[in-house]
């Protein structure tokens, strides 16, 4: 029946996923049987007792036994389903003490992750396989919701407080995660990739940011970083004014800043703008860009600068 | 189908023809008797009062939860309200409730003059209440104890980064919303009382027809009843 389950449900990426799927499939078959029974009765009665002029129908007002049976049986069934749902949900609600903790800060429309060692990523997480991982989440603006379909978990992210979610990934490779609480224009673009690594790969990735970048030209890698790290949300590449200045033609230009002076946009300026974005803000823009310190590894900064150079 | 019909030509008011109210100009065509019409109006009014309870209730629930969120701020903010003024307004409203119910009694016992006098005293009480409220409000305005982002008061104990905790502004948001909504009800009440006072002085009400007096009375008592809860919640619990 695996193929049948996969028609309806995404691949299973965690132990919890199997729990959810078992209940889901039970409810599916139960519903199928009940629905077919109801549909059969309705259609069969409509056909079997179809209209004959003058026929007198029996005067059946009620049947207490039958009515008790069809009230109590569903109730018992509901009790079973409730406890089944509760039992598996407890495993979602209570995180084990030894979980690795990752902090999520969600904002329109970007996911920021912070690891215990202080490294940060955006829209891209790596987690070790078969280790419970717990996310402590908060939002900087409106409600968001961290939803990982393969793990069968989601939870709202509420500004002003922290909420928690956890799972144990069991399947290596890429899993999709996405925002499930409506948060405005970029809601449906607020998604990213979760990579489940072996323990060793994960450690290495944490230290170096991985070595995927080596197989790309710097400007291509920079282009990818623009998408992944959320630069694209505010900085256009075609000259359109966004939340921040467009990157088109910005490299090598003298820009007037909000402090009234003009500065040359060169490698040093760009690097400073990523690490301390509000030190020099281009005039007429708001100082709202978050720092990408820890979020960008050296290869990412090099790549982004190389990419911006190409946008003339 | 087992339904029979009554010939209306012979029995123009159907069942329950107990003989009163048929010639009353206030009798509406879809009611059989004046009594049925009166009972129906009362059910309608009580349903409306239940919606009022839930409308105000939402604010009470919000106030309670915010109090639990900012207990210290709320405790401190309570001190800005003057207990004697709250107590005075409570007495005024309770007294007006009594004059109201005496007004209803007068209408029901065909005492036209007493009805008008009691209604006028009730209206007077309402104005006294509003006068006291005006005094209280202007005091709050002077001190900057205002709702939401209008809050300008200085010298609050709990400060965060040099600004007063948002709990203070929230307290006064609720204070102004709840007493304000209550005040709006008082103003509407004054209009209704004036309306039935005018009709009463024209002699429109008698023991057979005094529904508007009774319904406005119920409304007025509800306004009083809500104040009975607002008073301790804002002025006494500190």
């Amino acid at each position, binding site marked *: 029946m695996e193929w049948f389950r996969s028609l309806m449900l995404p691949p299973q990426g965690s132990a919890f996923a199997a729990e959810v799927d078992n209940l889901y499939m039970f409810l599916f078959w139960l519903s199928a049987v009940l629905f077919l029974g109801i549909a059969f009765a309705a259609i069969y009665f409509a056909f079997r007792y179809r209209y004959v002029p003058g026929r007198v129908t029996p005067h059946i007002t009620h049947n207490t036994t039958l009515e008790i049976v069809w009230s109590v049986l569903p109730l018992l069934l509901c009790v079973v389903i409730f406890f089944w749902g509760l039992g598996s949900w407890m495993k979602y609600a209570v995180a084990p003490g030894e979980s690795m903790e990752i902090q999520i800060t969600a904002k329109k429309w970007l996911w920021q992750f912070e690891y215990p060692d*202080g490294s940060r990523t955006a829209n891209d997480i790596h987690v070790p396989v078969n280790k419970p991982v717990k996310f402590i989440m908060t939002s900087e603006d409106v409600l968001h919701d961290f939803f990982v379909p393969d793990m069968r978990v989601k939870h709202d992210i509420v500004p002003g407080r922290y909420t*928690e979610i956890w799972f144990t990934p069991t399947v290596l490779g890429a899993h999709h995660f996405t925002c499930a609480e409506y948060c405005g224009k970029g809601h449906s673009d607020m998604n990213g990739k979760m990579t489940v690594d072996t323990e060793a790969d994960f450690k290495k990735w944490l230290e170096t940011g991985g070595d995927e970048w080596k197989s790309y030209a710097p400007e291509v890698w920079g282009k990818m970083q623009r998408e992944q790290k959320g630069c694209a949300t505010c900085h256009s590449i075609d000259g359109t004014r966004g939340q921040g200045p467009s990157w088109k033609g910005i490299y090598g230009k003298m820009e007037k800043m909000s402090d009234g002076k003009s500065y040359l946009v060169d490698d040093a300026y760009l690097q400073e703008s990523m690490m301390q974005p509000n030190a020099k803000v281009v005039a007429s823009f708001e100082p709202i860009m978050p720092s990408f310190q820890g979020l960008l590894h050296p290869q990412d900064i090099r790549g982004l600068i190389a990419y911006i150079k190409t946008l003339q | 189908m087992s339904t029979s019909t009554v010939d209306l030509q012979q029995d123009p008011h159907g069942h329950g023809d107990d003989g009163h109210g048929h010639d009353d100009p206030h009798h509406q065509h879809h009611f059989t008797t004046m009594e049925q019409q009166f009972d129906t109006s009362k*059910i309608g009014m009580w349903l409306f009062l*239940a919606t009022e309870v839930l409308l105000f*209730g939402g604010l009470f629930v919000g106030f309670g939860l915010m109090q639990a*969120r900012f207990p210290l701020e709320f405790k401190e903010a309570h001190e800005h309200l003057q207990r004697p003024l709250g107590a005075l307004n409570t007495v005024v409203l309770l007294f007006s409730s*009594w004059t109201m119910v005496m007004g209803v009694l007068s209408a029901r016992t065909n005492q036209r003059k007493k009805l008008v006098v009691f209604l006028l005293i009730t209206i007077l009480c309402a104005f006294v209440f509003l006068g006291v409220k005006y005094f209280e409000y202007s005091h709050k305005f002077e001190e900057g104890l205002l709702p939401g982002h209008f809050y300008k008061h200085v010298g609050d104990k709990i400060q965060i980064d040099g600004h007063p905790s948002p709990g203070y502004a929230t307290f006064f948001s609720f204070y102004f919303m709840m007493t304000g909504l209550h005040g709006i009800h008082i103003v509407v009440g004054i209009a209704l009382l004036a309306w039935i006072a005018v009709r009463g002085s024209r002699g429109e009400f008698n023991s057979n027809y005094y529904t508007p007096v009774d319904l406005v009375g119920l409304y007025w008592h509800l306004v009083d*009843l809500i104040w009975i809860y607002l008073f301790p919640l804002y002025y006494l619990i*500190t």
Partner: protein
Amino acid sequence: MSEHTHNPKAEAAVYAKTLITLLILTAITVGASYINFGAMNVVVALTIATIKATLVALFFMHLLHDKPVNGLIAAAGFLFLGLFLMFTLLDFDTRENPKPFNLHPQVAAPAAAPAATAPAVTPEHH
């Protein structure tokens, strides 16, 4: 119009007694507010308020002798308000507030320690 059967004088006397009782209760509740019962302050004040409200409903609003349906409607209003409060409190009183390892000061959870860690106020607020 069940009130027809009452004697108007007796009825007026009942209203007068009700008013006096309400005024006495007001005096009691104001007096009690100067005594500190600690956590019971709220209970005392709201109990007296409820007694007063009941008196108003029963006598001034005639519920005592009125058709039962009107009392039922009034009770339903308060009952459903009670349900609203009860379930909302159920949530608020049993919430857990997890904290991250690297607490960012600007988003401290306010419910845990309301005074000290209330969320920061935005600059435009002032």
